[in-house]
């Protein structure tokens, strides 16, 4: 069999695989459908180039296989052809880059009404903090973290008092409300990633990083750590539940604020001292 046939079948197989693959992305559940569109566009342009180049190669292999009496063409350069190819490629590249940059601009420009959520990562787990009625998160410091202050909130920051603390790895979000994820880590690198939301960013100890999205499908999603963070990396999962307004409000009511926790701790201590006195 002529080797060209096998190469042709490889190209054909690749295209068919792409068309009929049962493995493809999950349905997007956030506003980042534009990322999918950019991928689709890249598939058309890039895939087209791949198929065209490989088919041309296969054609050459068939057409110009070695024959004793054939003489290859002698043509060291073809300035015109090289120029055409350079410009065509440049145009193709611009066509791919431009929409990409537009969407990147959206990605790093957070809407003003986005709800700020503090996502705190450690080896190996997550917990979350949401602003209270004042709409602002209190400032934090890693060195403040202890049993009574699991997020390390600065005690003299008035914004921190009413912060809502979600001390499990399950976060509830309101459907169709943009959120700004503020990532921080107390130990090593992590990355809070929900495949259906498409977005991700590393959590880096020492700084606060961010990204934003707007969930637009209610349901339950798995959170995966997407940056290698040590031996428990693969087990560092969490969950996100996207709810309608009413369910979300109900959930919010049940959550504890920082001042609740402080009060509870104080009560406990009073209780303890009472017991000790008896």
């Amino acid at each position, binding site marked *: 069999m002529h080797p060209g046939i096998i190469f042709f079948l490889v190209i054909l197989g690749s295209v068919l695989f792409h068309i009929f693959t049962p493995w493809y992305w999950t349905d997007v559940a956030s506003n980042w459908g534009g990322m999918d569109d950019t*991928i689709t566009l890249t598939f058309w342009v890039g895939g087209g*180039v791949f198929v065209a180049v490989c088919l*041309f190669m296969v054609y050459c292999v068939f057409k*110009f296989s070695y024959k004793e009496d054939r003489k290859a063409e002698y043509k060291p350069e073809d300035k015109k052809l090289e120029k055409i*190819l350079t410009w065509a490629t440049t145009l193709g590249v611009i066509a791919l*880059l431009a929409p990409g*940059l537009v969407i990147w601009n959206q990605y790093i420009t957070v809407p003003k009404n986005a709800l700020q959520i503090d996502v705190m990562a450690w080896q190996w787990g997550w917990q979350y903090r949401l602003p209270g009625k004042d709409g602002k998160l209190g400032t934090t410091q890693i060195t403040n973290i202890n049993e009574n202050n699991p997020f390390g909130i600065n005690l003299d920051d008035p914004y921190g008092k009413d912060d809502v603390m979600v001390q499990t790895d399950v976060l509830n979000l309101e459907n169709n409300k943009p959120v700004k994820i503020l990532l921080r880590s107390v130990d090593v*690198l992590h990355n809070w990633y929900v495949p259906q939301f498409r977005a991700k960013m590393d959590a880096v100890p020492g700084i606060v990083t961010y990204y934003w999205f707007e969930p637009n499908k209610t349901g339950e999603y798995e959170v995966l750590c997407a*940056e290698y963070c040590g031996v428990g990396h693969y087990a560092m999962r969490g969950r996100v539940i996207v709810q309608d307004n009413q369910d979300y409000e109900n959930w919010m009511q049940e959550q504890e604020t920082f001042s609740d926790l402080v009060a509870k701790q104080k009560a406990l201590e009073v209780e303890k001292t009472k017991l000790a006195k008896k």
Partner: protein
Amino acid sequence: MSEDFNDNKTIQAQSSETISGGSGASPDMDYVRPAEVGDQDLYHGHSFITKWIFCQDAKVIGVQYFLLATFTGIIGLILSWLMRLQLGFPGAAGFMTAEHYYQFVTMHGMIMVVYFLTALFLGGFGNYLIPLMVGARDMVFPYLNMVSFWMFFIAVGVLLASFFVPGGPTGAGWTLYPPQTILEGTPGSGMGILLMCLSLILFVAGFTMGGLNYLITVLQARTRGMTLMRMPLTVWGIFTATVLAMLAFPALLVGALMMSLDKVLGTSFFMPTILKAGEVLEYGGGSPILFQHLFWFFGHPEVYIVALPAFGIISDLISVHSRKNIFGYRMMVWAIVGIGGLSFFVWAHHMYVSGMNPWFGFFFATTTLIIAVPTAMKVYNWILTLWRGNIRMNTVMLWCLGFIVTFVNGGITGIFLGNVTVDVPLSDTYFVIAHFHMVMGIAPLMVIMGAVYHWFPLVAGRFLDEKLGKWHFWTTFLGAYSIYFPMHYLGFIGVPRRYFEMYDSPYVTSATGMNEFISLAAFLVGAAQFILIFNIIKTLKTGKPAGSNPWKACSLEWLTPTVPPEHGNWGDRLPVVHRWAYDYSVPGAKEDFITQTTPPSEVADTGVEKT
């Protein structure tokens, strides 16, 4: 200066030869400038040790590099088998804990990128081919060249020693990102990472010795008439890659050094305030992202340190076996140089979601997509070289065609990942794994194999077996393609990389079957590589003798007075070069190739366009 040397006896003999040479046509057209420096004095080994072990012959050093790199590559291959065993059939290897898995991942990556590919292309092919292709007797600093290999030997020794220290080798991922690299919770965060850093430092030191040799040999030791624009693209590729390596490796060196200091002396270059198991560690103020910048400032040029020699070599192989000049030679040279220069301005496309200032995304996406243009030009020129050629469908050509398919495939997926928006959902998933294995693993491997089948007749004087070669090619190509092509789609689902186990996440259970298939293909492809080893052993014993210039190539390495070439390469007289390395199928010429040493007067009535 040059006048003094012109008095030198040998050189006079050479220039008089040129003036009187030729076959009747004007002798002036054969004029080549006299040499500016005298002939190199070489140290000839006279015992087994000085000839084969502590040897100063670049060709032997090249083979030594090749063998040691292949040895570490086989270790890397075995590690990949163990990883695939876990991924395809979780729990099948009873001893495999998450710690082991991450250690294997890390060592596989580091071995393959640095100790296998880099050492093999630059140390192996660079040493063997540069002096032969530019018409030198040897590298300009043969002793330093020997030390370079033995530094590499020690570096490999230190690297492998880390398998046997308490805690085992580092399991931080080949990117070695701090802070986790040097903290408990990552396997091998004690001795393992220190040995890794030490090994890298030794490698860089050793490589610098070799690299100086490659650069200065190309710049200073080319034979008469071998202008830069007459050099084979192989030499251009290796030369430019070495320039990159000399500028990029220092970033890795200081990164490794600073990390060792963070570990041993408790400095905080890369270490911010960290809370671990309820305790605040004694670090503070450092930046983990700084390390990522240093690493990728090395890491991205590193991709081209591997790719550029591969580009060069494949250009030569395609040209020789298509019996046609490489299309657009000058553009190919400038594309190599341009890609090399641009490769220093794209590093942070590995860091789009690292938490660096997001505004960098615009800059690095743009530079990354710009680099696609010269790369695409190279691809066009390869296939345009095939166009209207006279293509020998031998094993070498098959590897070339396999390279084109895998490289274009991996290049296109690179455009996905380089375009910052598309990278957001795909980064840290299996799409990335599939992309870089296709473009930086399989494609260069195709070139290495093509080069082995092409130059083996020169190194050993015998042809490798074609039938075995074809089996080797088809199992490797079809197997590797069916590993990495479907793997991209795991990335679309969202499967993250560096997961020891997936559990039962809804979007990965559907991929179980594919994972098993990929693992089986990986076992097969790995095993197929032993066909080559068998082929080499068989050929050395019973292979068909190749004789001189068996492929009818134009370039100098095939024109040595003896095959395989002896120490000193050229016998009494250095060759004199009159043309580029690609005069194939020139109209009017007797044969379908005109060697680089053929003076113009001998082919005066042919249609040679370029000299």
